[in-house]
């Protein structure tokens, strides 16, 4: 941990906010992607099942 001196609060808060928001964005993107893939695979499987 580097010595941050009197600006410690500002530095830590802005880094925390940045990493937090990016993490949120990544999690949202990932969840949406998983859901879209699951829905897509489900309907694809149903279609395949009907054809055979």
């Amino acid at each position, binding site marked *: 941990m580097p010595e941050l001196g009197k600006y*410690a609060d500002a*530095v830590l808060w*802005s*880094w925390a906010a940045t990493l937090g928001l*990016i993490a949120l964005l990544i999690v949202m*993107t990932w969840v949406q992607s998983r859901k879209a893939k699951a*829905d*897509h695979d489900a*309907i694809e499987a149903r279609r395949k099942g009907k054809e055979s």
Partner: protein
Amino acid sequence: MPEMHRTKQARDRYNFLWEWANPVKFMWFSGLALPWLVAATVLTMAIGLIWGFFFTPEAANFGSSVKIIYVHVPSAFMAISAWFMMLVASLIWLIRRHHVSALAAKAAAPVGTVMTVIALITGAIWGEPMWGTYWAWDPRLTSFLILFLFYLGYMALWGAIEDPDTAADLTSVLAVVGSVFAFLSRYAVNFWNQGLHQGATLSLDQEENIANVYWLPLLFAMAGFGLLFVTLVFIRTRTEIRKRRTHALELRERMADA
């Protein structure tokens, strides 16, 4: 050769179902590229951020607060780049009608919005010790607030229109006109209030440029944010394509049932 014949037929039907050849190619290519992109993003961001946070000296006037630039500058840079990418993608959609292009613009908007918010928040937190206030109507801060409003309007328009092609068309028109007005706002705001921001710290002019000890890790951080943007846009575009195809298949099922 019945085996080969059948695969070709299957592939043709697949293409026909997709109704556009391009998304198939995009899914194939992005599927291949994603693992590499993720790895490159993690590596570059880790280098840039860890270097920036732990191994950079304090600046004479700014103390340790200089470390904020490793998140502030890359996010601000990506906020503008994302809008620019959306503008280009919108133009490609309007001119060439590539569906992937329209969906990529849609996929980029939330990422750009988050980057804008990060730039605003880190700017405000930095502003407090530097200028004594969280918010000043400094031209650059104000411009970013305006950019944020443009992102909100763009995403709201996507959400409001049901027909996907109409939504793609109208948001593209908005992106083009909005870009002109965003550019105009930048100059209007500059005229309205001369600012507090320090001059071009990132310009190529060597004399004005900040020293190499800060510049190198910043370069890594910026590359990392850029790669993060590309990766997220790839994933989100794939999500959009899958959603669109699921929707098309659902309609087809319903028609077959009826």
